[in-house]
């Protein structure tokens, strides 16, 4: 069978494999099985069980997002005309990853771009360096609004500017310049403090948000939702050329407000005319405010404050000093300074002068401490507790009833009422609060003031504050505490001052307009009135104009007043505006009182050390479009001189009547 001899074992001496080898091989094999088992189990855990989580981590590693801004919603007036809109501008940006590789090549791009954009090349280099440090992948904005010439040039000569790109951005634009600027507000990049605020939850850093006025109050509607440009980056954070579809931004909703563009424009024009008139008469008037409101709904038809400013100045950063000049902060008295950012219609704090008298009258009548027929106020002055309270210009109206007292604005009459009311507690104060004076109106604007209707408790509090301050600064109480108040008890004199809208009363034109509106709708509804909520917002609309949400500002509470008493008060202020001898009757000369009866009250507030503040409050009746107008011009003189003619111009514009500026000559309050 075996044809050849088996070969000799090749190696000698041979060492035979020991039997123990089998066991050791088995141990090695078992070890290998265990090790492979461990590896496979771990792989299973990583890839199958936790795969999703690791995939997310991997995506987070490589995907970076640069938000693309959303266009803000427009603000339109009650007829849909744009008050604030957007303008598309092209921002010039540099994508660092697409710049030339060599330093010399980059410098050439910077220099070329500097020439086109009228910037310094060093500045561009700095911006690129800073942006690149923050995020390697994201383009750096060099100039936001470069102007069409530069953009065309850059687009045409793209090959000369590698890495330079154009990104459309939305800029706020104000077609009517400084019109209603304080109310519309302005926008700016969100800052650290705002990011922490509740209303801005979820807003990305760098987003443009409303900073004041309606832009601020309705920011969540107007803001929209930013989109995102996604970039794939490598481990070094540099952008990779990969096409990832961007997430589009969602435009903000439009806000329709109750303002009437036409009325707003003529009202601002009228206010300016009133201030000019006062200045021509030698009065140092430099500021003013007006409110025009629908008394039944609280819709604000026009609201303005002078001086104003063009909000587009906030497109570029302000210095601190410039900002202070705009807000009037850091100066002694905000009301004095031009401070165009202050909305004097809602934030101004003023005594109202005689425009307060209808409130005093209603209070006394409702409390039953006065009848319309009772005649009071004889003499030029009355003396209470050794203090003399006189009519303006030492006039003598004799003993008059309520209607006549309102018509001629008899101070002595209302001083007497104030003196009487003091014995019954907070009669006037309660009525003022009920009608909306000295209380927040809850208007849809930020920064509304509360105001103050002084009473005994308020006086106590002032005393406490003064005492505390003097305790803290015993060395120099006058210097340190200023002069909060002299320590004294609430006196009947203070109540008498309040009765004529003087003394420590502090309120705003908006509060007064709210109070008159409440009186008007009670008057029109047989004594069943309601305290309206003044407001601007009407609707939130989609960018295509479709209604998204109707904004609702229902009245805050019902106000029941005696209709007979209301009739007397309104008769008084109607006569004041229409009958010979009425304080503002000359101002309304030639006005069609049958079609649009005017119920108006002048006011002349005395402010220590200053020229009188001119006030006028009126209600002009109309079956469908009634209007309450409040006008004030600090340091403008008597009510009939400056404020009342402005109110007439506003009413003329509202009812389409010929515009006539007639300064009244009434020297009563």
């Amino acid at each position, binding site marked *: 069978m075996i044809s050849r001899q088996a070969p000799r074992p090749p190696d000698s001496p041979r060492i035979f494999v020991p039997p123990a080898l089998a066991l050791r091989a088995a141990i090695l094999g078992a070890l290998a099985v265990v090790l492979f088992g461990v590896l496979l189990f*771990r792989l299973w855990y990583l890839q199958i069980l936790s795969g999703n989580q*690791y995939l997310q981590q*991997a995506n987070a590693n490589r995907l970076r997002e640069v938000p693309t801004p959303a266009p803000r919603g427009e603000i339109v007036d009650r007829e849909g005309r744009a008050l604030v809109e957007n303008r598309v501008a092209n921002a010039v940006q540099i994508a660092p990853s697409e710049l030339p590789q060599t330093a010399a090549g980059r410098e050439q791009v910077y220099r070329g771009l500097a020439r086109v954009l009228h910037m310094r090349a060093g500045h561009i280099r700095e911006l690129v360096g800073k942006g690149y440090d923050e995020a390697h992948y994201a383009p750096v904005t060099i100039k936001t609004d470069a102007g069409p010439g530069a953009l065309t040039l850059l687009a045409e000569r793209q090959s000369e500017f590698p890495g330079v790109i154009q990104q459309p951005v939305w800029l706020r634009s104000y077609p009517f310049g400084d019109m209603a600027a304080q109310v519309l507000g302005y926008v700016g990049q969100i800052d650290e403090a705002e990011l922490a605020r509740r209303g801005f939850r979820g807003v990305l850093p760098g987003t443009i948000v409303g900073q004041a006025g309606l832009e601020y109050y309705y920011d969540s509607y107007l803001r929209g939702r930013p989109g995102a440009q996604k970039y794939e980056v490598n481990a070094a954070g540099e952008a990779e050329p990969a096409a990832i579809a961007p997430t589009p931004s969602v435009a903000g909703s439009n806000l329709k407000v109750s303002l009437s563009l036409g009325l707003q424009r003529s009202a601002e024009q009228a206010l300016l005319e009133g201030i000019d008139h006062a200045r021509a008469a030698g009065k140092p008037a430099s500021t003013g405010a007006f409110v025009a409101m629908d008394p039944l709904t609280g819709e604000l038809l026009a609201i303005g404050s002078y001086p104003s400013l063009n909000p587009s100045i906030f497109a570029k950063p302000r210095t601190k000093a410039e900002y202070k000049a705009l807000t009037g902060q850091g100066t002694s008295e905000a009301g004095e300074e031009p401070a165009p950012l202050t909305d004097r219609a809602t934030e101004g704090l003023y005594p109202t002068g005689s425009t307060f008298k209808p409130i005093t009258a209603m209070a006394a009548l409702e409390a039953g401490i006065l009848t319309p027929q009772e005649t009071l106020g004889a003499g030029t002055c009355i003396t209470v507790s050794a203090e003399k309270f006189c009519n303006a210009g030492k006039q003598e109206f004799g003993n008059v009833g309520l209607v006549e007292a309102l018509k001629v604005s008899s101070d002595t009459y209302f001083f007497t009422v104030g003196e009487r009311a003091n014995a019954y507690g907070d009669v006037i104060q309660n009525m003022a609060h009920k009608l909306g004076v000295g209380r927040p109106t809850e208007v849809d604007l930020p920064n509304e003031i509360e105001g103050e209707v002084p009473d005994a408790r308020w006086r106590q509090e002032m005393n406490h504050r003064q005492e505390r301050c003097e305790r803290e600064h015993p060395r120099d109480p006058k210097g340190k505490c200023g002069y909060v108040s002299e320590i004294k008890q609430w006196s009947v004199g203070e109540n008498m001052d309040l009765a004529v809208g003087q003394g420590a009363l502090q309120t705003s034109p908006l509060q007064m307009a709210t109070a008159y509106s409440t009186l008007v709708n009670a008057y029109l509804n047989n004594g069943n009135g309601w305290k309206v909520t003044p407001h601007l917002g009407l609707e939130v609309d989609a960018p295509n104009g479709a209604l998204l949400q109707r904004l609702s500002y229902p009245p805050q509470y019902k106000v029941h007043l005696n209709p007979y008493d209301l009739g007397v008060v309104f008769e008084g202020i109607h006569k004041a505006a229409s009958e010979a001898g009425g304080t503002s009757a000359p101002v309304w000369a030639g006005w069609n009182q049958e079609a649009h009866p005017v119920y108006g009250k002048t006011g002349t507030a005395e402010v220590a050390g200053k020229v009188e503040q001119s006030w006028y409050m009126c209600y002009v009746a109309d079956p469908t479009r009634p209007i309450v107008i409040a006008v004030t011009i600090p340091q403008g003189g008597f009510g009939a001189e400056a404020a009342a003619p402005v109110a007439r111009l506003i009413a003329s514009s509202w009812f389409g009547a010929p515009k006539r500026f007639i300064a009244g000559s009434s020297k009563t309050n």
Partner: protein
Amino acid sequence: MSVSAINQGTAPSVMASNEAVDGGVSARVLRAPVDPLLTLGVIGLGVCSIMTLHSVTRGFIPSSPNYYVDRQAAYLIVGLIAMLVLAGFDYTLLRRIGRPLYVAMLISLLAVRVLGHASNGSQRAIQFPFFAFQASELGKVLLVVALSGFIVDRFRRIRERSNTAQVMLVGLVAAMLVIVQPDVGSGLVYLAITFTVVFVAGVPGRHLATLAAVGVAAVGLVLVAAPAMGVHLLKPYQEQRLTSFLHPSTDPQKQGYQQEESKIAIGSGQKTGDVSAPQTTLDFVPEDDTDFVFAAVGERYGFVGAALVLSLYALVIWRVLRIMTLAKDLFGAVLSGGVLAMLLFQVFINVGMAIGISPITGITLPLMSYGGSSVLATLLALGLVQSIYARARATHALKGRDLAVI
């Protein structure tokens, strides 16, 4: 049992001519001179390596995207030829030149210290034209051969403690030379080889237990006790790399970063992987062509691909283990055991590093990682194993037992 079978078994090197004369086709297939499954596993891993590197290295040199793949393919082909040549070579001859080989290995490791060029902070390779010779890779194979010869020659003293100590010392000297390069990873491979050689050769169990205890104590001393006393036997970064898998971190400044990114890459591969493999392509995992090549496999081909690669390794190791038990002499068995230790240790530590369960060491993944020294050394080692297989088959045939292919 046919005549031709005996002929082939006894003289594989002349098999081809004999076969041509009197062998049947079926017999030739069944009695191939190499272990077919081991060869299949090796070729499979080579293909996986080329596929993975093809996508990983495409972007490394934009002007020649196939640079790395071409070279790796050349290494694999040269290595496979070397393996087949070695399979026909009688490995028992090596026993006699064990000592000269050991000396040559020590000289080559020392030469690296003198002539070598530094890469990634350590001096591991000598630059030749077209090729950077990494002495520690070839040294693994030389160590396996030398140690096996050494311990088998002194087999009569196998139960003596001093013998065990001497063998360990021989391995330790080589390991220390590598560790000071510094290449801690390869040094650990040397230690694993040494321990396994001693184990397979049949050293008494109590010696092994003592060695294991000494090993644990040494690790404790180097990584825990000495640093606590302010003595750093390793460089601080080496210590961190060895221990960071115990406390992973995504801080790019820390040593654990690579490992964490590698885990993310592998995990994100999920079941079937993502051919775009962003994590490795965008450089989040460094060294994804060499030490972290498994991360690229895991991300690109998912669990399916990673498990396939592991299966191929399991196949190779199973075959080596089997050949170890079939070896016709102790030298062959110990030699196979050393190669098995080398492969198993490297695969476990490297894959474990990529999936976050073993320390970060510069150990390559045999046959998968890009690099000529590693590929050639691995294939030379497997060539020796094939040779052991061939001789074993011949012996078994002589004893009248046919050796099934599988």
